[in-house]
């Protein structure tokens, strides 16, 4: 193992240890809740980036799967009780496989901007159904009172529950990206025609990554329902898909952990700047402008470049 790789591993292990120790540091309950949101947004951004950063497929509809997971959890908890919180996460992830295969078979027939528009169209269709089906989804009022079972009832317990699931997901996604399958996906991003000439079935690979991304998006949605205790149709709206794109670009789509970091930065800016001014989105706009114009590789991408230059 090279020294650089060893350094990376030590750095990552340090972050994981810090994340585990966070509730025992002198931080308030709110910081634990905030960190929980950050890691869940991070997971969603990472799942999205499987499509965009890894495979070169810009989906503007990942909110559909995120919202789907949230609504499966919300509806099951409301109708059958808190016991169903954990099973509902798995049910959501399983159901989303079927949905994403169905939608994927249609969307991956197209590429580029057409793929993007089709994913957006399906997501908006889902949003419209949730928004209008008052008797079942609560319409724009959403659903409230979604609480996990008692043993996950405190912010600290729920944070550990989320953290374990998120870390497990990150590990699986990383393995997936670094597998031969993931390597083919990266080749697809660069030149899909060449990949097909090499005898690979491009559409199968694209469908596969679309489904994997949907599964983890659904998990993120379910976990977020437990953090907020309520869900609403905005979770399926295009603005949520836009937010996750913003997070990925800000963090750096070319870096595995870039979107994760981007998620954290956006949530923090929203929280910190939002406390002082309603013009926080203006500040995000300025930061995005600077990133896109001057640091196109994103925060983590530029950081890696700096590390390489300084040889650390």
């Amino acid at each position, binding site marked *: 193992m090279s020294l650089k790789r060893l350094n990376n591993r030590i750095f990552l292990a340090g972050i994981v240890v810090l994340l585990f120790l966070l509730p025992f540091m002198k931080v*308030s*309950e*709110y910081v634990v*809740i*905030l960190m929980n*949101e950050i890691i869940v947004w991070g997971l969603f951004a990472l799942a999205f980036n499987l499509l965009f950063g890894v495979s070169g497929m810009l989906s503007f509809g990942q909110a559909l799967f995120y919202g789907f997971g949230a609504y499966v959890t919300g509806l099951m908890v409301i109708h059958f009780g808190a016991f169903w919180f954990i099973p509902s996460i798995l049910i959501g992830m399983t159901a989303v496989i079927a949905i994403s295969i169905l939608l994927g078979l249609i969307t991956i027939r197209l590429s580029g901007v057409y793929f993007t528009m089709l994913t957006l169209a399906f997501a908006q269709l889902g949003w419209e159904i949730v*928004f*209008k089906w*008052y008797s079942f989804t*609560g*319409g*724009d*009022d*959403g659903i*409230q*009172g979604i609480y996990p079972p008692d043993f996950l009832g405190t912010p600290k317990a729920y944070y550990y529950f989320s953290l374990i699931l998120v870390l497990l997901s990150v590990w699986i996604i990383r393995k997936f990206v670094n597998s031969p399958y993931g390597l083919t996906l990266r080749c697809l991003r660069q030149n899909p025609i060449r990949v097909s000439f090499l005898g690979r079935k491009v559409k199968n690979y694209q469908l596969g990554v679309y489904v994997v991304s949907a599964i983890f998006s659904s998990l993120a949605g379910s976990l*977020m329902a437990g953090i*907020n*205790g*309520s869900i*609403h149709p*905005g*979770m399926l709206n295009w603005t949520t898909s836009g937010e996750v794109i913003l997070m990925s670009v800000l963090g750096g789509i070319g870096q595995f952990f870039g979107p994760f970091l981007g998620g954290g*930065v956006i949530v*923090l*800016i*929203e*929280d*910190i*700047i*939002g*406390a*002082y001014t*309603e013009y*926080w989105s203006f500040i995000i706009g300025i*930061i995005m402008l*600077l990133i896109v114009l*001057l*640091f196109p590789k994103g*925060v983590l991408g*530029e950081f890696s470049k*700096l590390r390489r230059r300084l040889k650390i």
Partner: protein
Amino acid sequence: MSKKFFLVFVTVFLAVCFIAVAGSQSYAGAKKEVLIGALYPMTGRAGLYGKDSVAAVEMAVNEINSKGGVAGYKLNVLFTDSKVKPAYAVRIAKRYILEDKVNFLFGVVSSGVGLAVTQVSKKYKKIFIGTDHASTRLTVDNFQPYYFRVSNNTFQSMAAGALYLKDLQKEKGWKTIAFIGPDYAYGHSQWDELQYNLKRYGVKYKVVGVYWPKIYTPDYTSYITSIMKDKPDVLVAGFWGGDTVAFIKQAIPYGLFKKMIYFHPDAGGNYELMSAMGDELPLGLILSARHHDNWPDTKLNKEFVNKFHKLTGRYPSYAAEGAYAGIYAIAYAVKKVGNPNDTAKLIKALEGLKIKLPEDPEGFTSYMRPETHQIVQVQAIGVTVPNKNYPPATRMLGKWKVYKAEDLIPPMDYIKSHRKK
């Protein structure tokens, strides 16, 4: 400028952010004060409602603090833009409770946000004073002991609407009705509650059309032509804000208002409409809102409206009075209890709330209904008439009909059946 410079800039910016959050963590009301965490939209379509609410809150707080505060405590309000996003509002509400250690949650324009924040209030046992959102669900279906609302809800508006329509039927003998409202919970609640109250008050009618345009629809032409074909005697509208303005503006060229009675009892009479339309606003429209700048003709209402105008340079929309009432409700409860920390006693005090507000006519005082934690108030419905006293509006409401507060509240069997669901 080099990239290095910008890297330094971004790093410094983030560092400042972290220092800011670290600094803000230790805010907690160390001083002897009542700390209130308010959430209002400050941007977008609902931005005016938020801005008016914030101005009215500041006005009420200054009035109270200039007299020495309440029970020895000064009032202090923290404001954050809710962005009309329930998930974000939930996070801010948690921050208010856990970091800032507020004594009360406060505000909210959207019912969706209100429903999400009320769960936080329930979980952390923190009193939430609702000032503007109108969904009846908050005080009926989703009732929880820590929530109190200080402005009328849609049920009360629709009950007043049903009573007005009953009177109107006697006068004009109308028989058919059509409804148009935004296609989301707010619009649907209004229609359901109007039908319930028409039945409750024995009004016979025939529905000839029900229309659900999307919220923020830019073009209502197809709806207007369909309504004209249906020829209802009365068109009931359930829009709010810019949608009301857009619909009325687009319906004028079709002569819609000459062919049927336009009736808009929940938010139609908001000053926002009068100021936006000026001379264009047709006369004879029957409208109402949760507060009117020119009714009641009491000293308190005149003072409130004029002071708000002096402070902001504009006349208040109804949201302002709700926010103003909310601050006085808090002051009332803290004064009764003697401190802002005894939640159980504050709830008791708020359940017995009796408070004279700008929208109360002579001889009536608003009070809290303990079974629902919903304020009980009269509602006045008026007709657009020329009036240049509140510029830029050139029409205001007049020819008022006032409905008794007790006739507007949901009966107990309605509450029980909804809470069972």
